[in-house]
């Protein structure tokens, strides 16, 4: 018996602790480096196509170039677009004569310094997955790759996972009744292929691989960006000691997580499971006590 808590705490090998033999494949994941995302949405398209995910509506949301909105039952990759003021970039000598940068004629006040953040969101495949903890049918399970997958032939649409996820990823599909989310292309992984989104990504903003290696690569990338003066670069979900035990799919961000629609400090709900049942036990005991005492009186 390992000296840790299955639902919370340090967890180096989620697949092994779910019962896979010691020779199970290494944990797989995504490192999404948003600093090189160009917002092409090839990941969204490739995901839909490979996984046969139905359309999720054709709404024009009016949110920059984002007409997808959020992850959901029929959206397993979602590219966020954020437009925001940016510090003026250091001047670059292009060696070209004349003209000057846009706005140079009107002075600095007339210039709008502006940047675009783009980020491809996906299921985090948490080490301690809230959805997996609460699933009452066993439809959600931990794969040998350490990822979290729903079995559509088992799911009975109870909806518990929808509220169990601290990131708002998994959702019940209207008209279908079952819960759906990213499988990290479980079928492709089984055949030694990389997930469709990572395969389609033209800038390698979405990197797939062994989680250990991805974490090292991400740490190097942050260091590199900091050296280049991009001091706002930070990792999200890469820390194996965070409130969900680290994400299988983590991110390099250029602003606070909530700007991208992420919770700033997510915690798996099952962390407090013992306390919750203890309080329920106390409340139940109080009920028994009162229900016994009321028979003590007259009448």
């Amino acid at each position: 018996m390992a000296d840790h808590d299955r639902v919370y705490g340090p967890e180096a090998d989620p697949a092994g602790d779910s019962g896979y033999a010691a020779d199970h494949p290494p944990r797989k994941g995504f490192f999404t480096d948003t600093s090189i995302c160009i917002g092409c949405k090839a990941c969204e398209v490739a995901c839909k196509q490979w996984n046969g995910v139905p359309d999720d509506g054709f709404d024009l949301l009016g949110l920059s170039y984002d007409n997808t909105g959020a992850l959901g039952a029929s959206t397993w990759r979602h590219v966020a677009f954020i437009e925001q003021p940016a510090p003026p970039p250091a001047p670059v000598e292009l060696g070209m004569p004349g003209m000057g940068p846009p706005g140079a004629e009107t002075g600095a006040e007339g210039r709008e310094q502006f940047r675009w953040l783009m980020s491809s969101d996906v299921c985090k495949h948490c080490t301690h997955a809230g959805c997996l903890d609460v699933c009452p049918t066993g439809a959600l399970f931990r794969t040998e790759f350490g990822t979290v997958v729903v079995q559509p032939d088992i799911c009975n649409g109870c909806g518990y996972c929808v509220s169990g996820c601290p990131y708002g990823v998994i959702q019940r599909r209207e008209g279908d009744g079952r819960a759906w989310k990213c499988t990290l292309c479980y079928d492709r992984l089984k055949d030694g292929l990389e997930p469709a989104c990572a395969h389609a990504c033209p800038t390698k903003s979405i990197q797939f691989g062994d989680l250990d290696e991805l974490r090292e690569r991400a740490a190097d990338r942050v260091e590199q960006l900091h050296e280049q003066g991009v001091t706002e670069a930070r990792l999200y979900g890469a820390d194996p000691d965070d409130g969900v035990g680290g994400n299988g799919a983590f991110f390099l961000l250029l602003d606070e997580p909530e700007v991208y629609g992420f919770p700033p400090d997510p915690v798996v709900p099952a962390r407090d499971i013992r306390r919750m049942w203890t309080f329920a036990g106390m409340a139940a005991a109080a009920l028994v006590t009162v229900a016994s005492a009321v028979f003590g009186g007259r009448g």
Partner: protein
Amino acid sequence: MTRRKGDRRAHPYAQDQGDYLPGAAAGGDAVERRGPGGGRLGPLVRDDGSREGSMVPPAEFRSYYGRQILKTPAWEDKIAYYFFAGGLSGGCALLAAGADLTGRPGLRRGTRLTGLAAIGAGAYFLVADLGRPDRFHHMLRVAKPTSPMSMGTWLLVGYGPAIGLAAASEVVPKRWRRTLPGRLVSGSGRPAGLAAAAMAPGIAAYGAVLLAQTAVPAWNSGHAQMPFVFTASAAASAGGLGMIVAPLGEAGPARRLAVVGAAGELAASRLLEQRLGMVGETFHKGQAATYLRRATALTAAGGLGAAVLGRRSRVAAAASGLALLAGGLFQRLGLLHAGIQSTEDPKYVVEPQRRRLAAQGPTRTD
């Protein structure tokens, strides 16, 4: 300062996206707004110069276009009906056991029969709220301690037959009482009723754990108080029911349970709201506010009625009982909707987590 028309040309999407134009300063009496980038946003000015409400609610926290982070719970009002029915049934099973042991056949019979009817109705609502009701039995594939819903299902599997047998023992027709099956059913009334009573507190309380073990802010942060709301409300409902079904002479325990339950429910729900801090706002918004106001009024009136008039008049007792039952139902509906509302605005996710980060740094597993 209002933004001049000319400024809008600076951005190709200015027509639609004026709200998010970076760098614009908030002006005049406008409430300060922030875009996804956190920059201050000016008031949205139409091309004709008039001001218009923002798409994003005024707030200090940052978010992705004010969009919700968590998913709205998939559960409908049926799940609240289920929690109410489960609580009522559990409370009834306890009253029935007491009535059985203290020789109050009227109270016993009414609470056993209602206990079965309520859990039957609850099971119907539970199954009907599934996305795939025909797959209800998939719950029985596994027993998962990490899933309160799985634990609750197995509790129901034990409790249902027990209360069912106890209820059946009340309705064995006279001409069958001498037959072997009739004697078996009649004889099993007490053991089955006691078994049901042993599981009843679990039936009444586990729903609170089910709701608490979610990422829904209004449910998760109230995990210490919510079980008490559930069991107190179960006591109030069952007490109320007992006052309706039992003759005045036997209804004393039901009255006392109703009064203590109602007081407990009112106190526990206040504590719950206080514990939630800013997320407690959801108790005073939208549908949750309506339901919870009704719950408070009906529970207070029912509890008071039970205490003052309950022993004098059967009619007053029944009216008080009905008020308590309705109060319990509205309590569950209110809690359900407060939770739903707390997922619909990202501030209930971002602000508490930011506050926690500021106070104690990132959450650590080690």
